[in-house]
């Protein structure tokens, strides 16, 4: 399924049989925005950064479990808290492990829009059910 899909392109940089190179203009393989400038500095997260991120995540996990196991009377509030902490963890993973903090801002914006989209599906569906 999807595996075959993107895998085929990750293997080998697609070397096309022809490119516009023969017309003395740029081949479509290079990113047009960076052509002509020096290769941009790629941020390298240190091993320490990653380890600290893990510690933060483990701490949040511990808190979530503790609230659930020891805070049994919170009921509906505990769902909300658990989801809130889970969301914080997700943001941490995306921002640091997945490198969003150092990537083009475009990716962060796209992710935010996608999340808003999904949340609105959830909200609209909930409105439907809650008002029956």
């Amino acid at each position, binding site marked *: 399924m*999807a*595996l075959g899909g*993107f*895998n085929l*392109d*990750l*293997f080998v*940089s697609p070397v096309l049989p022809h490119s516009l190179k023969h017309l003395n203009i740029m081949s479509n393989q290079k990113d047009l925005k960076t052509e002509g400038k020096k290769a941009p500095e*790629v941020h*390298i*997260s*240190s*091993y320490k950064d*990653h*380890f600290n*991120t*893990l510690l933060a*995540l*483990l701490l949040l*996990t511990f808190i*979530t*479990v503790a609230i*659930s*196991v020891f*805070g*049994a009377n919170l009921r509906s509030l*505990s*769902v909300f808290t*658990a*989801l809130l*902490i*889970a969301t914080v*963890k*997700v943001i941490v*993973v*995306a921002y*640091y*492990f*997945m490198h969003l903090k150092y990537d083009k801002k475009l*990716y962060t914006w*796209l*992710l935010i829009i*996608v*999340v808003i*989209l*999904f949340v609105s*599906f*959830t909200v609209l*569906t*909930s409105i439907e*059910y*809650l008002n029956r």
Partner: protein
Amino acid sequence: MGMWLFLFTEILLFGGLFIVYMVYRSLNPEAFLMASFELNVWMGTTNTVVLLVSSMTIAMSITAIQKGNRKLSIQLMVLTLVAAVIFMVVKYFEWSAKIEHGLFPGQAVYDNLPPGESLFFFLYFFMTGLHVFHIIIGSVVIGFAIHRTAKGRTTKEKYTLTENAGLLWHLVDLIWIYLFPLFYLIH
């Protein structure tokens, strides 16, 4: 960028299941609570920790290749795979325990569960099953990344496959971060 776009589709894919979960939990709150007692919080927590660690190892493997350290990159990716195996072993024990108790859809105990509880278990097996499927795919992609790095085709300048394998792996982690409280921590 292509990989991020693919991740968006995965968010929506699992998202659909989360919507189903949310609707049915709100319609059957007591049943979901009762059913969740079958799940073992400590096994779930172990798996959460395992996946978080594996996210760190794969992120570190990218740092390693960026610094030109092929060997370390491979070792860290192998560690990630070890974590994946541990996750699946724990899952195996969890699932077989439930199947022993007859809770799989189609088995006798399952068929006689009160309304709402059967929904919980169906969603549990469906969602964790789909998740495990993605763990397997993620592991295979990491396997390809290891192979490419070993063969020297992944270099300090060009490590797209490793990056993409990492992104896919983080997604698997992200999904579990939500699955865990929703199934294991209803108290």
